[in-house]
């Protein structure tokens, strides 16, 4: 009976965790290049159930009748890397990736990856993110822009009317869920070198990739989580009532 109480309570805790992930996803509905977090649930520990005939003289006849779960636990968090919708902004330094690639950006000698293509020029004319991270070219160097209008081609080549300035790097990963870690600020950190085999996609100038959150899916999940929480809570109350009945009937 106590086992059941804790199992029901574990469902409450887990659903609280899922609610937080939903809150995080909802808060990032307007975040450019945001990839939603998915939660999974797993079984918590299992324990054997021993049947006792309830008679001391037959104590030797205790036997195992199977296993009972002790509740549920939050599983591995995964990131949904599917592409978000592409929105036209007409801003020349807004870039969107159509495909699996990431922009490579750098700050304090650390390289990060991002799908957020809101770039600006910094005071020294370098191409940077809105946080001041340098956008890197294919050779891994920051890109210094000339004092004039630029066009960016589908493969990332930056051109002025006369010359080629550089090429924006796109890197892709074979298994982004294992290779990349979310570090906040729309950035990911890579554990391995980018793959050379995966198709990287093309760059669209004047476009941005919206977050890949599906509002109706989120709403449904939220209803599910809150109902599931409610159910678990009712279970705790039921277990509590049973326990109290047992104590008052048998103890009295």
């Amino acid at each position, binding site marked *: 009976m106590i086992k059941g109480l804790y199992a029901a309570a574990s469902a409450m805790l887990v659903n609280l965790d899922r*609610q937080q992930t*939903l809150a995080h996803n*909802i*808060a990032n509905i*307007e975040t450019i290049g945001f990839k939603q977090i998915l939660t999974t649930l797993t079984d918590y520990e299992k324990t054997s159930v021993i049947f006792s005939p309830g008679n001391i003289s037959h104590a030797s006849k205790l036997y195992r009748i199977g296993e009972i779960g002790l509740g549920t636990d939050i599983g591995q968090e995964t990131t949904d890397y599917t592409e978000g919708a592409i929105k036209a902004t007409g*801003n020349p330094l807004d870039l969107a990736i159509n495909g699996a690639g990431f922009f490579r950006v750098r700050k304090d000698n650390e390289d990060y990856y991002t799908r957020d293509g809101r770039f*600006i020029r910094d*005071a020294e004319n370098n191409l940077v993110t809105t946080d001041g991270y340098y956008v890197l070219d294919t050779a891994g160097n920051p890109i210094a822009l000339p004092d004039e209008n630029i066009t960016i081609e589908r493969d990332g080549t930056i051109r002025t009317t006369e010359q080629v300035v550089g090429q924006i790097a796109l890197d892709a990963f074979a298994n982004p869920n294992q290779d990349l870690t979310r570090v*906040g600020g729309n950035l990911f950190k890579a554990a391995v070198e980018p793959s050379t085999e995966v198709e990287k996609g093309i760059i669209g100038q004047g476009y941005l990739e919206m977050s890949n959150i599906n*509002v109706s899916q989120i709403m449904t999940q939220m209803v599910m989580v809150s109902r599931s929480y409610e159910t678990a809570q009712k279970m705790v109350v039921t277990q509590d009532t049973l326990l109290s009945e047992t104590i008052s009937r048998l103890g009295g």
Partner: protein
Amino acid sequence: MSASFNTILGIFKQDMILRVNDLDVVSNNLSNVNTTGFKSSRSNFQEVLESITPQGGSIINSHQMLHRQGSIISTGAPYDIAIHGEGFLSVLLPDGTNAYTRDGHLQVVENPDATLRLEHSSGYPLNVTWTDGSPPPNTVKIELGDNGIIGHQVLVTKIIQMPQYDENGNPVVDANGNLVMVDREYTALEFVQLGQINLTRFPNPSGLRINGENLFLASENSGEPAEGTPGTAPFGSIKTGALEQSTVDLGEEMSHLLALQRGLTLSARGFQETDKMLMGAIQMRR
């Protein structure tokens, strides 16, 4: 990893505050749909992850002014100018520093010392390079030419050589059969340059600070101002008798407003749901 009601409610609360903040930006854009030289802004949302709370919702990391070219409409007014391309007009603030603007609504105002100056619609004098180093006297009538040339029309006497005619109206011919030429005087209006309106550009115009009255101020993010003659690359050109319209796109702002409203509703709904869960947890023990 541990979630708590406080964190979740905090994320939703923060999110609602941000939507309202974003609403301010949209309202500002919408209210400036007819402001000359206005550049629309947007809020840049960003994901927040913290070590204590693994998921922290989002923040607005910056308000980015988008320096798109506004459409240029002809007004026919003599002192209206529009910049096509990059660059800002610069005006002198009372504290001696410069402010920058794309609003080319100018007027000619008389100084106390009987000279003239060009004044921006904000009431501050426009920075102008006068050809002879000082502003012209109030006796001239200033005109603006294309690409920022300031000048005036001067009545000049010119001499032209004309054939000489006799009393019968026939040209006079000399012994060799050539026309005999004489000097004749005539007067004409000529455009004489008095000064030049220069443009100032920044590496990162999005980094300029907004000062109000259509004026921007240089900041450490905008980079160093560079001055140049209009019409020479990379500076834009100046068109006289026209104004640059606001870049606010009503359709874009309205659709953003709808998305914003939906986001706010979603957050509020999430807040309520979380509150219901919390309420249930409290009421477990009666």
